[in-house]
């Protein structure tokens, strides 16, 4: 995860790609990760399917349901990742809801993530107040717990959350759920400026980033972008090459 800070220090912008593990079968995951690594993304977020993904919009929910129908589980994803023998040059981040983690056992989860080469974890329904349930085990396994902040995060909470932030901060750019959107407001721009001025680590914008215009609007106010639904949809439609301009828009302006 240190490379994320280095990228920022060098003036580059990060592109974090989200994929739903097992959408179309778990055997696709390896190819998807290798492909994305080849396109020059900065990191890959691997989503674990969950029966009740209340923070996600329809695109990711449907992908998750397809993965669940394929019999994909947290355990199977971590075992699959552990088996990979190709060279991984970029950090892998696991995004999962809390319940599968609790069921798996928080300590075992942290250890399995370490064994699978996972660098960081995002748990959207584990708010800052309850992080003690999982955080100590992740720390022990030297895995970063990514903090989320949103447009509705109050100033006091923002301070506390940023204080604990490691790796990068996931800044949610909408008040809603994940999904493809047409416009991002000026309010978002202001919010990003505030978070970035206070954050000790790079700040990445996520939720609703699907167009190069979104990237142009926010480029100067963030350190990177997280793109989920647009990539999940492209993989599902077998049109992943359509997403390359979006990746290029972020990474090509980076210094070589």
């Amino acid at each position, binding site marked *: 995860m240190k490379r994320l800070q280095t990228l920022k220090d060098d003036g580059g912008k990060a592109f974090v790609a989200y994929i739903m593990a097992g959408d179309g079968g778990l055997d696709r995951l390896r190819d998807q990760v290798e492909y994305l690594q080849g396109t020059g993304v900065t990191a890959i977020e691997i989503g674990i399917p969950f029966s009740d993904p*209340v923070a996600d919009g329809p695109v990711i929910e449907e992908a998750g349901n397809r993965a669940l129908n394929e019999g994909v589980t947290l355990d199977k994803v971590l075992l699959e990742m552990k088996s990979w023998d190709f060279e991984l040059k970029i950090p892998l981040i696991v995004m999962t809801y809390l319940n599968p983690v609790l069921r798996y056992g928080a300590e075992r989860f942290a250890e399995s993530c370490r064994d699978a080469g996972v660098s960081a974890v995002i748990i959207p329904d584990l708010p800052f107040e309850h992080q003690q349930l999982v955080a100590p085990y992740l720390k022990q396994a030297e895995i970063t717990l990514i903090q989320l902040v949103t447009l509705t995060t109050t100033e006091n909470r923002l301070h506390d959350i940023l204080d604990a932030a490691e790796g990068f901060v996931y800044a949610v750019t909408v008040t809603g759920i994940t999904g493809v959107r047409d416009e991002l407001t000026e309010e978002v721009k202001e919010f990003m400026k505030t978070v970035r001025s206070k954050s000790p680590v790079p700040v990445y914008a996520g939720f609703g980033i699907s167009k190069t215009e979104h990237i142009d609007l926010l480029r100067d106010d963030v350190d990177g972008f997280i793109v989920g639904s647009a990539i999940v949809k492209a993989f599902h439609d077998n049109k992943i090459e359509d997403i390359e301009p979006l990746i290029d828009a972020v990474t090509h302006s980076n210094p070589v």
Partner: protein
Amino acid sequence: MTKVKICGLQETEHVKAAAGADAVGFVFAPSRRKVSVEQAARLAAELPESVERIGVFVNADLAEILEAIEKVPLTMVQLHGDETGDLIRSIPVKVIQAFSVRNQKDVGKLEQSIADYVLVDAPGIEYRGGSGRTFDWTLLEHAAIEPGRLIVAGGLDAGNVRGAIESTAPFMVDVSSGVERDGKKETDKIKEFIKTVKGDSMQQTKGTEKDNGFFGRFGGQFVPETLMRAVKELEEAYAEAKYDPEFQASYHSYLKEYVGREQPLTFAARLTEAWGGPRVYLKREDLNHTGAHKINNAIGQALLAIRMGKRKIVAETGAGQHGVATATICALLDLECVIFMGEEDIRRQQLNVFRMKLLGAKVESVTKGSATLKDAVNEALRYWVSNVGDTHYLIGSALGPHPFPTMVRDFQSVIGKETRKQILEKEGRLPDVILACVGGGSNAIGMFHPFVNDESVRLIGVEAAGEGVETNRHAATLTKGTEGVLHGAFMKLLQDENGQVQEAHSISAGLDYPGVGPEHVHLEDIGRVEYNAVTDEEALASVISLSRLEGIIPALESAHAVAEAEKAAAGMGPEEILIICVSGRGDKDMATYAEKLEGLA
């Protein structure tokens, strides 16, 4: 172990000495021990969390009591005057009602009290509220008062308190002048008194419920960061409203004038005869406007939304009863209303869907997952996340992130509070068994909560066993579920070994939910409430018995409680009392009854 209350504290030193007690009392009524609210707040800050802070009042008005509750803050209120039942019901914390006992007639009065606890004292001389003299403890020998509700006061000291405990076996003993010398409290005497009652162990007992949103290990606020602000704002707004006399008055006024409360506690003579066991009473939530208990909560939350400046309401519904209640109150109060309902439930509950539409609500069909209540909650949560600025999520059961489970319970506790008063009026004592059905568990927690500290009252929650708990088609979360997080709370869930939430099944749409309110999980965990499961078939059979024996066609949900009651009654005698919460009426289930029970006629 008998609990100890040290009363009439005025000095920091004495409050610290009382830290080993279970409760301390601050006197706000005229007395040489009187303190101001500000003084009491300062003194209370010196105490450990586990010690109850009790405010003592004589004929104070509600506003004064509520102000003290909020500012000290008090965890209980003790009343020494001629306070009415209405006042007692309006107090949002546990209430102790004090009685001076000279003779058997006085004992009769305390037996009628609807307060959570009764405190027995000898008659005062100068001021009301304690005389320093002991009363005749033997008067209580035949009193119809649960020992779990009894607090003994009056002239106790380290010398006589063991005798008082042996004679009356009270829940708590209360001392004031017995730990004073020349009218002033003495640190050594306070410590000696506590030690005498508790032995040397000085073991601290802890409360079962805390204000941080957890019931024991269960509850919490497991929501995405996008919702945290809304949840915290709601928590603050409710904490204020709870102690605001105007808000409480408005809420109770709607219950009375619009819902038609209070609802009767009907003696079920033919059911009693048919079962041949206990005297059976029915708490008639089916008589509420809109046909079920759901409206009690919908009114409370809608008034809170307005107080928060929100004019749009989103809600989920299973059987449609909560949706109808919400749509109704939104029509009455001119609020915009969106209801999410599973496609499968829409099919089962067409009449309620039409009702909601007629009332002006927008009904959104949820086709995802099992297309039932769980999925409707998911969609309602998503809608709330996206519209959080101007929309209140009016959740229908004692579920979800804090403060929802506490708030819904408080709004539904009117059920148990009325029942308690009514059974004391009718039978002069508390019931032996109370049953209520549990889906998310709002009617049950509202019924149970006012009785939780009455150890003699057996509380039974009834889940849906669907086609049987041994099959995978049931909704028996407490019986068969495991611990996990769903919809914002750590509770029990029906889930697979990978933490994926499973579909619940019940013939009753209102019980068809794979989780259960966190307070129920806690009450099960500590062994206070037992939870049993009843099958679709057993519930349907009870629909017939209640219809034919009492002329009351119950909702399918409520029929589960009736079915379990019949089992419980089998082991009970004619001197015993059993109460069933009839949470709703069967109108909405008529299509199911027609289909399943055809040929009956």
